[in-house]
């Protein structure tokens, strides 16, 4: 059945968990493009025959193939665009450096799209407030308390807080730190918010 492979790509994304990026299905993409090429060629032949020999009974199959072509285009675009949205979400979740295992699942063009996106976002943030700049990827949650208790999940070296004191972030150590300083580190998985 036509468009089966294209549907499979969509299902692959639907099956994967919210926000997760499965490996780029280069094979699947190629198969859909091949199907499109062959459908198009068959149509070219039939259109010529219909015109020259007046074989109007070919028209329904020409129309069918055209519909399949459009469907394949639509499915592919949906597959690719949905992946872009997941990649975009990664910038907001992890920051501008993606974990290696995620990058591994991206094709070269996706990596490039990500690079352009984060540059665009960075210039936008820098230009806020007449050039003053504001990092809107911070402050994701309304501030509930000024300081929070955090536990260090892995060694992260030294952290300097605003009043000059230096904290050593050693694995399993617990600290009482200003919330705004910890946000990014919590998202990156370095610190864990300990709720008492």
């Amino acid at each position, binding site marked *: 059945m036509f468009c089966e492979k294209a549907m499979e790509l969509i299902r692959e994304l639907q099956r994967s968990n919210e926000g997760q990026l499965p490996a780029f299905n280069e094979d699947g993409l190629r198969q859909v*493009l091949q199907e499109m090429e062959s459908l198009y060629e068959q149509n070219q032949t039939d259109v010529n025959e219909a015109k020259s020999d007046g074989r109007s009974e070919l028209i329904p199959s020409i129309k069918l193939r055209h519909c399949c072509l459009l469907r394949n285009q639509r499915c*592919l*675009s949906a597959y690719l665009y949905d992946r872009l949205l997941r990649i975009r979400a990664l910038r907001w979740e992890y920051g501008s450096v993606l974990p290696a295992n995620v990058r591994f699942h991206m094709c070269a063009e996706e990596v490039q799209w990500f690079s352009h996106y984060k540059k665009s976002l960075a*210039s936008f943030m820098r230009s806020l407030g*007449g050039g003053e700049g504001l990092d809107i990827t911070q402050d994701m949650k309304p501030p509930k308390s*000024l300081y929070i208790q955090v536990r260090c999940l892995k060694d992260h070296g030294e952290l300097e807080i605003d009043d000059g004191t230096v904290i050593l972030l050693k694995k399993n150590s617990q600290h009482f730190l200003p919330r705004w300083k910890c946000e990014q580190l919590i998202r990156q998985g370095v610190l864990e918010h300990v709720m008492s």
Partner: protein
Amino acid sequence: MSDALSDDGSVNQDDSQEDVMTPAELIAKLEEAWLNEKFSPELQENKSEVVECVMEQLTHMEENLQRVKKGDAKACIHRMEIDRIRFVLSSYLRSRLQKIEKFFPHVLEKEKSRGEGDPSLLSPEEFAFAKEYYANTETYLKAVALKRMPPNLQTMDMLKAVPEPCLDSFVFLRVKERQENILVEPETDDQREYVVDLEEGSQHLMRYRTIAPLVSSGAVQLI
């Protein structure tokens, strides 16, 4: 509020501006814009003057905070206040950016086709961002798939491919200025259109499309 910390708390820093607001009024304006943006299905008019003023205010408050003695209990409260305002501002800008990305071809189209005197939907920075997002996405789709497709399928009409915001979604609102004779369109064929009067202070749940102009004019506040 921040009057306690700022030296000339009753007048906005930039005296050359026409609207002079107290910091409290400015923050109230920010919160209104924030709520409207959060709850409306489509992108609202841009309020870059509010954004700029709030950022100036934040800088001013941070500077004042530096001067306060360390360990002073008041410092904590003011720090909290700065964090809260910064959260609202960031959330507001994020809300806008999300809608710009979600509806990018429509947003750009609307901005391009607006009249000379009409207020702009996007700030210059947002406009640049939207254009870059469009170009980036189009280039990507072309490079990965479209250029490998048959000749008649190598372009994609973004305006058709990307869904438009759903203006018929329902929103909660509170009436700030009394409105008379608001026409409510029927939703189904067997309904008829009817008019309502919106009393000041009353709260309603209505289709966004019906009251969209009232949100822009400030007559209602989305909640």
